[in-house]
């Protein structure tokens, strides 16, 4: 790989790490601004000032904020996310399995949604402004416009209650085979797919239409290529950068934005875990989950940037 690409990629990665550090400061500061602290939350309203002071001493809360921040950051970097106040359990251990579940769901939703969205986008361009295009756009837009809980319940109603093809509650546990797991997550994955589909499809359509005006598309048409071959071979490769960007944003949404869908289907993922602990005001858990979500977001955006750099022949093959 040539030097400008390596340099640009290194820059993006360095920026990403810096950004993540800044986010960690924000998350920590944000939870500090909230009234009350962990000691007060543990002991409740009836706590005496003496017992509060004792507990603060015990938890190291009377140290200045920046020392606690570095303490927390040091723990995060060594894989220690602290313990949940409400249950006293190690956060890292409980998150590990849930993160895996969330990623599993997001992965299968993405496997279906991305190729489907891009193919529909290509077809929409091929029959642009005709009824096929309008139908694809209309249906995709409608599916995005419905709130995800509504789509979720619709799916449950038809496929779980009426026909009983898939379970209404997506419980997964250790020892399930891949097939069983896939059947369990079919409905939430379908709901997520419907939510992210339109955005990617429309961006694919718009990005390709943008390059359809180019002289090289005309060149391809004048070589006698079929309409679909022109789009796939000559327009799509030049529209890839904006498409990747939207795909990555939606992937991030699949990981981070699944809260509602996970709650509807009672799926043991990160979203459900976060919602549970927000209601319990369990600050260490909220901090840890927030940091992980931020990391996912930043990582996917870096990947989008890098993919766009690598997709650009001018950067890959300098003069």
């Amino acid at each position, binding site marked *: 790989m040539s030097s400008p690409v390596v340099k640009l990629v290194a820059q993006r990665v360095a920026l990403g790490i810096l950004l993540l550090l800044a986010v960690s400061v924000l998350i920590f500061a944000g939870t500090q601004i909230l009234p009350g602290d962990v000691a007060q939350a543990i002991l409740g309203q009836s706590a005496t000032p003496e017992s509060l002071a004792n507990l603060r001493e015990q938890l190291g809360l009377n140290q200045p904020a920046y020392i606690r921040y570095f303490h927390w950051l040091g723990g995060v970097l060594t894989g220690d996310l602290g313990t949940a106040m409400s249950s006293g359990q190690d956060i890292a251990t409980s998150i590990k399995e849930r993160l895996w579940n969330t990623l599993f769901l997001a992965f299968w939703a993405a496997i279906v949604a991305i190729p489907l969205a891009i193919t529909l986008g290509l077809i929409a361009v091929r029959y642009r402004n005709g009824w096929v295009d309008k139908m694809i756009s209309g249906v995709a837009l409608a599916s995005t416009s419905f709130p995800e809980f509504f789509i979720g319940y619709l799916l449950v109603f038809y496929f779980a209650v009426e026909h009983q093809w898939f379970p209404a509650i997506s419980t997964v546990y250790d020892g399930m085979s891949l097939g069983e797991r896939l059947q369990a997550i079919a409905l939430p994955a379908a709901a997520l797919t419907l939510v992210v589909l339109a955005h990617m499809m429309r961006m694919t359509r718009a990005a390709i239409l943008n390059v359809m005006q*180019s*002289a*090289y598309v*005309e*060149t*391809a*048409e*004048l*070589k*006698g*290529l*079929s309409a679909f071959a022109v789009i796939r071979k*000559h327009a799509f*490769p*030049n529209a890839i950068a904006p498409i990747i960007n939207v795909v990555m944003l939606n992937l991030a949404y699949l990981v981070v934005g699944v809260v509602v869908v996970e709650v509807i289907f009672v799926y043991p993922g990160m979203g459900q875990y976060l919602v549970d602990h927000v209601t319990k005001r369990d600050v260490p858990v909220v901090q840890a989950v927030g940091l992980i979500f931020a990391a996912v977001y930043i990582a996917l955006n870096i990947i989008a940037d890098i993919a766009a750099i690598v997709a650009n*022949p*001018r950067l890959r*093959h300098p*003069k």
Partner: protein
Amino acid sequence: MADSKANAGRLLDIRNLRIEATVYPPGEAPKTITLVHDVSLTLEKGKVLGLIGESGAGKSTIGLSSMGYGRGGVRITGGEVILNGRDILKGGKEGLRKLRGREVCYVAQSAAAAFNPAHRLMDQVVEATLLHGTATRAEAEKRAVALFKKLSLPNPETIGERFPHQVSGGQLQRVMTAMALCSEPDLIVFDEPTTALDVTTQIDVLAAIKDAIRDTHVAALYITHDLAVVAQVADEIMVLRHGRLVEWGGTRQIIKEPRQEYTNALVSVHEIEHNEQQPGTTPMLSVKNVTAAYGGGLVKVLKNVSVDIYPGQTLAVVGESGSGKSTLARAITGLLPPEQGSVFFDGRTLGNRLADRPKEDLRQLQMIYQMADVAMNPRQTVGTIIGRPLEFYFGIRGRERDKRVAELLDQIEMGKGFIDRYPAELSGGQKQRVCIARSLAAKPKLIICDEVTSALDPLVAHGILKLLLNLQQIEKVAYLFITHDLATVKSIADSIAVMYRGEVVRYGSKSKVLAPPFDAYTDLLLSSVPEMEIGWLEKAIAGRRMESAGN
């Protein structure tokens, strides 16, 4: 059929071609306009027909109709296009796809835009050949390399591995010609293939195209607005205007004995009488030893440049693209602060940076650009555009402003009726006139004209040059005239600076610069300007060969 036997040598026969398009004017109902009115033409195998005319004449539209292709919403609504004995308009989409890239190939004006930036050149060159199954990949690549050699491209064996952005504009244009020839078509449509190139590059590409046409016996439609260029390659020339045929004849007849007035105007264009003024005693603007660079001093684009401009006179700056002409303008206007040297104006030093200059200095130096349509706000009327400098520099408002705008419109030979029009409603020449009026409104002492006629048709450009000369007489304004076109220089300049790679290689009064003995670069530049004379190309190329042999 008896008919087809009689026309055995005939490749293309277009009969009563009518082409229409639907336009959507803002605020009005869509209407259908006719772009080509019942034009007929025939082309024998192996012959070259030049299609010539100003923009909007329908040249490209007719050229593309030989492939059954309509750009944008353009439709072929009448007539027949008979290629190799059959009407291709009756063959349907499949039929058209089979002939495109096989029987007829296309060479676009800007190869830089017509090559897909995402694919290697070789893949694009052999694509049509492979698609139509006329050769295997190995054969097609061998053929392509042979064509690269024939078109004298550097490194013919490996140039196909490159991406379009790694190859220069002139080379790309030759690769595009190779791409068209690779499928061994019967007909190639060349659509202004050298218009976007520098004059010194144009001559090489033109010679390469001419040789390739001769050696492969392919027929060609050669579309251009430059009669001198088409005279070098065409057997016959067809002059078009507003989608109608003006005149059709042999090349010699068209350029030597034009029968129509319009053709005559095209042939005799560019001959403006301009008496050179002698430089005065004190220059109005002096550029002294200016060095400028982009990228924080990394890319030096101007090296120690010094020129003078005298009041009411024109300095022409000539050179090919990348020679630093426009950068000189940017340095003078303060858009690109020079690294060394300075610019003196009216006996004082101008601030290096734009921000350091008082409003009065900004007013005295105005600019006109090549692309008039992007230099104007599309949502403002002509009145607002011209009135803006009046308000900004002089605080003239209301009725007085409108009066002044009307006067300015009068000066640029456009009526008062244009005051409420938007730029989109104007022709290219009218847009450039409005830009001239806008710069005049500031009552400047110097106007920098950056390639102001390059995007215009010859006749329109001619009108603009005449207007600029008239205005100079009346307003006593000086021009810094940046151009790559030596014919323009001859008709407008008082003194000339020839630039090459950021340096002024020749500088002086017009008569001195254009008189021998020449330095090598000026000689190359002068000898590259196409002349309206059959056989000029061969002479010019031969002259060059002798010179390089002598060296």
